[in-house]
């Protein structure tokens, strides 16, 4: 069931290799350039082939994704990364925001990511809902196991940019987000642990009234 044993490492260090440290820093600095949203970066990781994905360490996934993001946003050419063509310097570079050491702390603790939604929430605490059976070709934050399941709205969690459009340059389109609770049995059937409940934070358009 699932993907096998966890292989828990006792006293695990914060990093396992020097390159992981630089990979973390590179990813965050590059994100600060302001050329892509978090949803676009998630989508870049999702487009890594499953075979490579499962084999890769997490920071390697970030690096593969970063290549994609840099190339797709025109900041570097593939040939530059692999050293097969001369480096170019694009005109627009001045528009980029380069993160400086003195800005790091403020950047890391920058404010909340909520976005104002023009509509009132469609659901209230206690409402019974059913998640839709959504299988988009692009990015989504509705997990596969939670499709077509009935649950209860437990909290209204504020409104946030909608990943399914924000990942594809189709705008933030903020939506209300709800904590929706399901019984383990609803999700996994009769064999489920009877003491289990699972919740997700669901965007409003993932839900319909049940």
């Amino acid at each position, binding site marked *: 069931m*699932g993907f096998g044993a966890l*292989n828990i490492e006792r006293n695990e260090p914060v990093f396992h290799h020097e390159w992981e440290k630089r990979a973390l820093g590179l990813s965050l*600095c590059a*994100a*600060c350039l302001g050329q892509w949203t978090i949803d676009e970066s998630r989508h870049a990781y999702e487009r890594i082939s499953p075979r490579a994905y499962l084999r890769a360490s997490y920071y390697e996934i970030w690096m593969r994704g970063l290549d994609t993001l840099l190339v797709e946003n025109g900041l570097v050419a593939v040939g530059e990364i692999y050293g097969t063509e001369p480096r170019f310097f694009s005109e627009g570079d001045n528009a980029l925001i380069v*993160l400086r050491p003195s800005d790091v702390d403020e950047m*890391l603790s*920058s404010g909340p990511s909520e976005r104002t939604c023009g509509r009132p929430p469609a659901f209230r605490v206690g409402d019974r809902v059913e998640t839709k059976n959504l299988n988009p070709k692009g990015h989504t934050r509705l*997990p596969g196991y939670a499709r077509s399941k009935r649950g209860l709205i437990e909290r209204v*969690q504020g409104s946030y940019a909608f990943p399914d459009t924000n990942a594809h340059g189709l705008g933030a389109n903020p939506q209300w987000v709800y904590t929706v609770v399901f019984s383990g049995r609803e999700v996994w059937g009769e064999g489920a642990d009877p003491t289990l409940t699972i919740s997700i934070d669901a965007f409003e358009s993932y839900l319909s009234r049940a």
Partner: protein
Amino acid sequence: MLPTRSWRFKLRPPVEMESLMTNSHGGHDNDHSHLENDHENHYSDMEARVRALETLLTEKGMIDPAAISEIIETYEKRVGPRNGAAVVAKAWTDAGFAGWLAKDATSAIASLGFGERYGSRMRAVFNSADEHNMVVCTLCSCYPWAVLGLPPVWYKSPAYRSRAVMDPRSILSEFGVTLPATTRIRVWDSTAELRYLVIPTRPTEAKCMDERELAKLVSRDAMIGTGLVTTVKPSP
């Protein structure tokens, strides 16, 4: 003051697909036989690859390597599970704070000086004798960096991400934790911009400890929900 456009919404431990979420069985991940050498080569490849990219972006003026070093320093030295442990200890010793934490974790945590890293909202979920909480991100690796630092490898593994929502007790048993069969288990899947901090139950033997001593008892795993807090000091 920095322009905020760039990191509102644009930062977070990068993340992934659910397409590998197993909805069914799957094998044990013990394909060590002839992959080990691959991995060694692989890591030296990565070393070269990351260095090349950093050099390229630095030469292009897009990256300041000193900022990278500052970020590394932050997570190696300043931000880690002891932030979360301080939150937990305060909640155990200050009922007013605990109430605030339950109602508005984002502000309560910020009041201790470590809120809102990466612009995420926080929610604190409280264990009780009847209910145990566990946090996962099945879609990628969302994690409360501001209070716990960087996630451990197991948290980001396909194994944890697939099994936590299906069979949390089997995960707990790998951590040496056995809960009564009647304890309810609530698994929180971080599918949006909210990050979860588990507030473990306070060990009853620790009555006379002060906040600072209590904080030392609180392990990272206890705040993810894969551990409990006991008066035996956890390994870091």
